[in-house]
């Protein structure tokens, strides 16, 4: 716990990676709206960069399509662009460049080029920003061949994942959840209440496995989640220690393409699975996860998979309405209880 207090926050971790890679690698270019110092970006991830690397930090006009498209051109020509969309909601304006350009060039040119770009997208609600500044639109990109969609939770080494994304040969959509920015990363193997294990290459997009019980004990329920859901999951798991509900949580760092192995293992360990995401659940990421778990763990499941997400409507601006529309610790707890019953 003492350790956790000295560990960097999510935003600090991301920022440090940007500083480090820009320092080490002249191919890295950072671009986006309002990213120059002293402002340093809407969520301050880019703070300090423009002062140190004025030539390679470009504040752009308001033109998300061109931010993405210029990144494609930079990447095609040997640079490693890291673009920021101020809000992930504006990904809709970059969809053509991402799907019809970044994801297409390498394959349609028969593997002769790479487009190693990163587009960072702050997603998620709980800040009262209303229907067009609170969405989790990663669903637009998951499943698109030849791009990766990556989303660190605050149990992930967010900065290390960003570095991996920057050095990925494929285009990477890098999903940051706004509520995580001020959170301290929790990378210790054990905390007072929760133990953490990282599965998969640490210099890539590992899956984080969390347990609120001793290694000798058997878990009761598996929760599969990603990104900002760690914000709800961690306190809930701590709280459930008292209730003696043993939760095995599994959070992949890479949403798509999805390495299902650790998820299936976690599902098999309990036979009771909740899949939760911030977005509304219909046709969401969790549909694929649920379908794969059902397909592979058919015999071992002891209850239907419970899928949880936001109410299928807009994310309202009013705080109480927003809270009611989004997944809460209460609705997550209910889902856990449902799958346990």
């Amino acid at each position: 716990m003492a350790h956790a207090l000295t560990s960097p926050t999510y935003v600090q971790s991301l920022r440090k990676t940007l500083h480090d890679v820009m320092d080490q690698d002249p191919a890295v270019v950072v671009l986006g709206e309002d990213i120059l110092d002293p402002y340093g970006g809407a969520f301050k991830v880019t703070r300090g960069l423009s002062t140190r690397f004025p030539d390679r930090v470009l504040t752009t006009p308001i033109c998300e399509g061109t931010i993405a498209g210029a990144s494609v051109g930079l990447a095609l020509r040997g640079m490693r662009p890291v673009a920021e969309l101020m809000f992930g909601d504006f990904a809709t304006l970059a969809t053509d460049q991402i799907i019809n350009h970044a994801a297409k060039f390498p394959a349609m040119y028969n593997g002769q080029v790479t487009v190693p770009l990163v587009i960072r997208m702050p997603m998620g609600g709980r800040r009262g920003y209303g229907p067009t500044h609170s969405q989790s639109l990663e669903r637009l990109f998951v499943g698109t061949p030849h791009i990766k969609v990556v989303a660190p939770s605050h149990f992930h080494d967010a900065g290390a994942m960003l570095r991996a994304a920057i050095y990925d040969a494929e285009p990477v959509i890098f999903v940051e959840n706004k509520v995580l920015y001020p959170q301290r990363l929790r990378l210790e193997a054990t905390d007072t209440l929760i133990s953490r294990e990282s599965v998969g290459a640490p210099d890539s997009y590992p899956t984080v496995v969390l347990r609120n019980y001793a290694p000798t004990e058997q878990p009761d329920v598996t929760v599969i989640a990603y990104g900002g859901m760690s914000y709800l999951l961690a306190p809930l798991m701590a709280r459930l220690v008292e209730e003696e509900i043993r939760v095995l949580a599994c959070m992949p760092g890479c949403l798509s393409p999805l390495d299902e192995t650790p998820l299936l293992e976690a599902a098999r360990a309990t036979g009771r699975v909740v899949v939760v995401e911030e977005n509304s659940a219909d046709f969401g990421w969790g549909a694929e996860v649920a379908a794969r778990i059902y397909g592979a763990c058919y015999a071992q499941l002891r209850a239907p998979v419970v899928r949880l997400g936001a109410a299928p409507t807009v994310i309202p601006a009013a705080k109480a309405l927003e809270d009611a529309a989004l997944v809460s610790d209460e609705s997550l707890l209910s889902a856990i209880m449902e799958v346990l019953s």
Partner: protein
Amino acid sequence: MRTDARPPRLDRTATRAATATAAAEPMAERDAQDAQDAQDAHFYSQMYLIRRVEQTLLDLFSQGKLTGTVHTALGQEACAVGVVNALDRERDVIFSSHRAHGHFLVYSDDVGGLIAEVMGRRTGVCGGVGGTQNLHVRNMYTGGIQGGIVPCAVGAALAEKLKGSGAIAVVFLGDGTMGQGAVYEGLNVASLWSLPVLFVLEDNQYAQSTPKALEHAGDIATRPETFAVDRAVVDVDDVRSVYEAAQRAVRHVRERSRPFFLALNTYRLGPHSKGDDTRSPDEIEAYRARDPLPRLAARLGDEEREAIEGRVEERVRQAVEAALAAGVQDLAEFTERMRWHTR
């Protein structure tokens, strides 16, 4: 922004007294003066209302009584007042974006509905769902995606043209928003199809933290020309000049069924949203000296001005009180309301 500060006018009561003694003054001139005075008073009440509502919203935000975000247009009130008063509010259609409280207030005069909306109350014009960036009342629509409302306005103008309603569509844009390609697609289509769209650029020289020089090459006010869209540029020192230019622009659009682009040079005296201001204090102070609100105030008599201000303060106070007392809509109530949209 014009720098020539005209000599302050005499205070209105004094002027009145002076003209009252001038028996030779022709009737028409006196009527015109009266009308101008009445207009000043009316515009002042609107500008002061916007100013006080927005200051109040910022206060409420600091006090934690309002969450999320709020973008105010302190210093830009004359744009809203000058343009919206030039419209036919019975039929014309308005699109605006994140900084639209002023447009909303002049259009609807619904102080309570606005404050409650920004505070997330059920009594807000959108029941708290839309919030500050997503307002709707009658023929007015705002949305928080910069540039996204431009094609919507083009489509709305086409609808009105096809219906033969005689209405025009107005779309308010910021200088930063001129970075979006959608604006140029919209200028082209509006001009090509001869649609009654009035583009109003509120050029406050900044997009969030970014000065115009880092947003644009060339002069944004000239851009409409190449799409064969006529244009005018007005310095927003005096609401009267904005109003007069807007009247001409509206007439152009309505009578010819052609787009027009009205560029308003203005300045935002407050922060972009909630205190995140990186501009130089000197620059801000220099513009504060040219704030159109006190300039207009100076044309009113103290008594009249104070009466207006008192009424506005009271309206704002009551609106806040009512909003604080109002509840928040239930999610179930909201989703139930949306159900009829689905068959």
